[in-house]
Each structure stands twice: as C-alpha cells, then as structure tokens.
C-alpha cells in the first residue's frame, strides 16, 4: 500500500500544524464566521489524526470516530450559524469585539 510508505509521524505533524493554524485563527480573528471556520479546521485536523492512527493500527475504530465527529461538526455548524444570524439581526454585526455588553 502506498499510504504506509509514508511514516505515521508525517501525518501527525501535518495534523498538529493544521490544529495550531486553527487555534491561532480562533485567537486572532475577530469575525465570528472566520472564528467558526478556524474551529472547523481544528476538528478536521483531529479527523486526520484519527484516520492516520486508524490506518497505522489497521483497525476501523478511528475511522468510525471520524463519522461521528463530522456529524457533530454539522450540528455545531447549524447551531453556530443560527446564533450568528440572531446576533446580526439584533446588532447588525458579526465582529466579536463589537459584542461587549457583558462586563464586570
């Protein structure tokens, strides 16, 4: 198999890099939609980890997990976009730094 010619570590490093890109995106961007996209990158980088471990171990458990993660990410997308939409209706903005009523 072609895929096993590439060592496992390569996949893990790739997914770790993707995860960090996603995390940095969440921390630095101010647009709620882009933050949400960064979270999706994080989840998908974890999916890559799962699949590569799964291939490496030769069992299907990790790939099974990925399907559940995809379903959960879809549910999260539905809820998240609905919340952003509700915010836009009230405040005409999707930038999180303009949403600051709650402070101590």
């Amino acid at each position: 198999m072609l895929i096993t010619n590439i060592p496992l570590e390569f996949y893990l490093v790739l997914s770790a890099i993707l995860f960090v890109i996603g995390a940095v995106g969440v921390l630095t961007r101010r647009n709620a939609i882009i933050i949400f996209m960064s979270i999706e990158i994080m989840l998908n980088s974890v999916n890559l980890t799962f699949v590569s471990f799964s291939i490496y171990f030769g069992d299907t458990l990790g790939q099974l997990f990925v399907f559940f993660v995809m379903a959960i990410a879809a549910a999260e997308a539905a809820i998240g976009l609905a919340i952003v939409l509700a915010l836009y209706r009230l405040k005409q903005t999707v930038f999180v730094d303009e949403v600051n009523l709650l402070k101590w």
Partner: protein
Amino acid sequence: MANEIIKELSLGFPIFFISAMGILLVIFDAITGKNKIINYIFAIAILSITICSAGWILFSQYYNEANNLVIHPISMGMLAYNGYAYIFDVIFGIAALLTIIAAREYNERAEFEYKEFYSLVVLATSGMMMIAHSADLLLMFIGIEFMSITFYVLAGYFRKRVTSVEAALKYFLLGAFASGFLLYGIALIYGATGTLTFQTISQKITAQDYNNLYLILGITLVFIGLSFKIAAFPFHQWAPDVYHGAPTVISGFLSTAGKAAAIFALILIGKNIMFVAIRTLDSNHIITLQNILAVLSAATMLVGNITAIAQNNVKRMLAYSSVAHAGYMLMGIVANTPDGWAGASFYAAVYVFMQIGSFAIVANLEDKDGEYLDFSHYSGLYKTRPFIAAMMVVFLLSLAGIPPFAGFFGKYYIFKTAIDAGYLWLTIVGIVSSLISVYFYLRLLIYIYFREATEQILDTSEPRAAGFTLLISAALTVLLGIFPSYLIELLLYLR
C-alpha cells in the same frame, strides 16, 4: 439472545427512555399547536419516570458490577451500567426537573414561553446521562457535545434580548474551541493505546503496552478541554459572561448540571487512565500533571472567590462563585482516590441543589426585562417577601459552607480527602478561599435582612410552581447536610 436484549433494555431503561422521549417530544411540539401546558406536563412526566426508574435500579441493586464484563447486545460494550452512573442519572434528572418547574413562570413573565424549551432541557439531560453511562471515549465525547450543543441553544433562548444572544455566541465559540482540544486529546489517547474503551485502556496501561508521549499529551489536552467545560482557572473567563447573559433559570441549569457532568467526565478519565497509570508505573509525568491540576484547582478557588467580592450584581456574583465551586470539586480529582471521587460526586450533587435554588430565587425576583439584579434591590426583602428571604438564607449559608447545611459537609469531606492524598497546602488554600467566600454570601444576607428597602419594591408575584423548586432544593440541601453519610457511603460502596 432475546433474554440479553430484554435485560439490557431494562438496565438501560433510564437513558433509553429519556433519549427516545426527548426525540418524541420534539415531534410532539409540532403536533400540539399553541397549547404549551401539555409539553410542560409531558416533560415533567418524562423526567419523573427517568428519575424513578434510575432510583429503583439503584436501590434494588438490580444492576451488578459483573454486568460490565459482559458485552451487551445493544450498546456493544459502549454503555456502562454501574452504580455511579445511576446516581448521576438521578442528580441530572432532579436538576432538569427543578429547572423546568421553575422555568415556566419565568418564561411567561419574560413573554418568551416556547415549547421547544422543554424538549431542549430533556435532550440536554439525555446528553448528560450519556456521559454518566459512557464506557468509551467515543460515547463520552458524543455526550459532552450533545449536552454542549443544547446548552448553546438554551443560553441564547431569549433570542430577542442582546445579552442572551451575546452569551450564546461567547459560549458557542469558546465551547466549540474547547471541544477541539478535547477531541485532539481523545485522538492522542487512541493513538497511544489503540483503543477507545476505558476498560481496555486500563488493561493496556497496566500491561505497559502504550506510547508514553502520546498518552501524556492526550491526557493534558483532554484536561484542557474539560477545564473549559467546568470553567476552571485559566479557562474560566467565559463563565461569568455566559451565566450573566443567559436566561436565569438556564444559568442555574448550565452552572450546576453541566458542571456536574463535566466533573463526571473528569472522574472517568482520572479513574480509568491516570489512577491506573500512577499505580502501575509511578510515572513522573502523570504525577507532575496532577500537581499542575492542584495548582489550577487552588487558582480557580481563589480567582472565583476574590472576583466575586467585587460584584454588585447578584447573578454575576453567583456566576463567579460557581467558578470557585468548580475549584472545590476539582480537589477531588486532584486527590484521585476513591474517596476523592466520592467527595467530588457528593459535592457536585449538593452544589446542584443549592445553586439551582439560589438561581430560581434570582429568577423570581427579576422583572420582565431581566432587570433588578443588584444587591441594593434585595434590601429589605425579608419584610416584603419573607418566604423567599428564608429560602435564600438556606442556599447562601450552604454555599458559604456553614455547618448544618450540605455545603459544609461537602467541603469538609473534600478537604479531608485532599489531606489524605498529601495535598495539605491545597486544603489550606481551600479553607482560606472559602473564608473569603463567606464575606460576599453574608453581604447579600445583610442586604436582605438588615437594610431597609430604599428603592422601589420588586413588583413580581410570589412564586407559584417555582415555590416547589425552592422547597425541594432547600429540603435536599438540609437533608444532605444532616444525613450526609447515606450518600457518601453509597458512593464509596459503589466505586
């Protein structure tokens, strides 16, 4: 085969029933038209049946620890049927029931009563029960996500009120971010051991058949993810904003049942992975991790209590104090002994009742736009609203940890287990921070009892159904304070 299926159906009746009925309730919403009371009663009935069946299984000892060695035909070994799970079923069920009972008049007053509220609370409860029954990291993750996603919706339930939507957005973005960490941690634990079942993970660690680097990284990331969910120190900033902005009854539900569920997930990780790893290997890394956790627990208690002093808004004060209480529960995880798990579970149970009670009072005193939440609005409350003032005394003294009430024994037991586990300094920090907390709880009581009403008197009506929430939670707080040994011994026996 048929026998085994029937056996599992009866063992898992609480969780199967509430999950199926939660979905049915959503369909039911669409059929019943404008009549909201039917859904209210239906949701209460579902939760009551769930609590009763879980309680019956628990007290008749129908479940058996040996059950968990058999692969069950329906769940294929993914659901665990042990005593802890049923105890937490009962706790989550009661929390949801108290919330729903108190919620109806609150939502009516805010002119925002919709039927899906009840189905969402029932579904969130079924997600928590999934965590309680999980024998597998996959199910634990699904349960946490199921719970969180329904919580995002509930936090933004008043979708025409900016604060509520803001709370939902913050909760959603940070919660989903935390889920990413949790998921990455689970992936690395899978990579370290090649399996997802708690039992097999323990076996592999005992047999030293795992990758140390991935395991340490995985546990760390899982802890980061779960610390977000329980609002522990470096990851607690979202909590005050969310609990302040969300509808008050929902804040009560999020900050108690949600926290108890995440604490249970931490107990699962501590029990099945960290405890085993320390016992078999004397792994220095894991002990370092435990010490870091101890520092975080101390910081959580101090930060929560010190920041709560500065608050003038009762809801926000309760929100910060809920951060501090997460720190107390974390002490049980730090000790990481059977006593510690029992202590954390006991404290979670007690905390659920006292916190839901105090949030129900705040909800009752709030006006329809969510105003009148400051300390000064509570002055002279004992004259105008003697029943509510008396109930508030019970909850606040219990939260502060004053002896006859359950909060005292919960703290005492957790401090004792932390000393037994060799964390004397952590216990001292805990005691100091709980002394600090007495200040702001008593300050509210002074406003209620020793100040004359200066501002206009709150014109909300006396609680109707919410009175039951207050009475039940006050009764449970007092009972668990006077007879704590029943629950503690049950928890210790079941471990």
